[in-house]
């Protein structure tokens, strides 16, 4: 069974058609990058998968369940572009932020256990942020904050991780380190679907690329094929326009 199945998916805003009969799937262990020029619907596709938007046509299944009926929240996790729209004055520690990620596992009214605290410690260790657990989140750099948000996503031990341009607004060195971290997590068995505008920095770690076109269609290909020339050139050309 595919972890994610998208079949004939179409989506339109009132004034614009974004996706048209898009189909693809993600298997266990995949690292799929969603690439395309601005306005091709990369983030919209992620919102549709995560049931934040309703498709105009078609269907999406997560772990074999239609996305609007999917309630097994602990199996998936999501990392947004937090580093750019984050309220730096929010009074919360790194540990408190990571603990929020446990909600999908604990649910309503259930207090955290000793085991949960161990999960928080382990998630922070995975992203190399153990020494910062008591620091206020706003005091960290953009790259460190994004690592914390990845730890928050990992703390519930998900099977699939979705990321929406996680490296936007982060310095080049931090981008490389986050990409390496995602590559390591994928090698450890985590299935990843990531929207990116900067395909070159993550391509080495991914195994598939979904290229969205301006006509609303999309093509899933191996990272090797994507890297083999013409398509990469096309994306760069369109970006430089």
């Amino acid at each position, binding site marked *: 069974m595919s972890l994610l199945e998208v079949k004939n998916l179409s989506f339109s805003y009132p004034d614009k058609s974004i996706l048209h009969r898009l189909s693809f799937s993600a298997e266990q262990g995949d690292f799929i990058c969603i690439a395309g020029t601005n306005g091709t619907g990369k983030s919209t596709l992620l919102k549709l998968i*995560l049931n*934040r938007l309703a498709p105009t046509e078609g269907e999406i299944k997560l772990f074999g369940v239609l996305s609007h009926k999917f*309630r097994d*929240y602990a199996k*998936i996790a*999501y990392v*947004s572009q*937090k580093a750019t729209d984050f309220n730096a*004055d*929010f*009074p*919360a*520690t790194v540990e*408190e*932020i990571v*603990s*929020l*990620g446990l*909600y*999908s596992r*604990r*649910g*309503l*009214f259930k207090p955290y256990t000793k085991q949960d605290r161990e999960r928080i410690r382990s998630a922070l260790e995975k992203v190399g942020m153990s020494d910062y657990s*008591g620091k*206020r989140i706003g005091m960290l750099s953009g790259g460190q904050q994004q690592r914390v948000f990845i730890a*928050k996503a990992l703390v*519930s031990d998900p099977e699939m991780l979705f990321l929406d341009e996680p490296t936007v607004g982060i310095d080049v060195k931090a981008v490389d380190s986050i990409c390496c971290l995602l590559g390591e997590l994928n090698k450890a068995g985590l299935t990843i679907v990531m929207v990116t505008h900067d395909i070159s920095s993550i391509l080495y770690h991914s195994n598939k690329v979904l290229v969205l076109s301006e006509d609303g269609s999309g093509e899933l290909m191996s990272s090797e094929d994507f890297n083999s020339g013409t398509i990469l050139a096309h994306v760069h050309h369109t970006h430089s326009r």
Partner: protein
Amino acid sequence: MEIFTMQFMQRALITAVFISVITPLIGNVIVLKRLSTIGDALSHAGLAGVTIGLCASVNPVLSAVAVSVLAAVTIEYIRRAFPNYAELATAIVLSFGVGLAAVFSGFVKNSADLNSFLFGSIVAISDFEMWTVILLSAVVIAASFLLYRELFYVTFDEEGAALSGVPVKSVNLIFTILTAIVVSVASRTVGVLVISSLMVVPVACAMLISKSYKQNIIFSVIFALCFTITGLIITAFKDIKPGGTIVLTGIAVLIVLLLMRPKR
């Protein structure tokens, strides 16, 4: 200190302690969600409730609670209709509250009653009003503890909370109703016109010194308790309005903390 052996002052102190705990509990979420104006909107709706209560010879605290809760539900409804203009909902409800209060205030026979809600009159509180405050405070404290993680998550990242399975709409609705309850019961203490400040100022003070979300809540409650009790003590010895004194005490502390803050 002899004054604190008097029954009316003891009632005032007990009520003040409860109000000081519940206002920052709600204020934390309001400030961190950047919805500081919701307190103003609901307090003005509460004022409309007070005037209706005074006209209809119903206990004004109870009528304020009823109208504020109705206003809170309306705010949630309007906010969903205009999801990208959250402040529009508070502005509409505030205007409606002011309009309604202005119309009904013309029918209030004893203007001193209305005045006590505008500027607060904690030392004139009755036994019934004190018990109403205690009961409603217990509801607010219990809900804040039970929904601690949900409120924290929704305040920090509403989208992330929804994706983790937090029932965001229900949590927001419960919170708005709690806000309405707090605003209404606190209006008798510090007054409708300054209740919003009591929700915001202790939280602002706490934000300057706290390192975590939990600490922020604890510090804001401590600040609110200090401001209210100090304000009451001043009121006991000088013949001035308690509501204004409490808020001005808070503002003075905030200014001191701002001046002492290390430069970034």
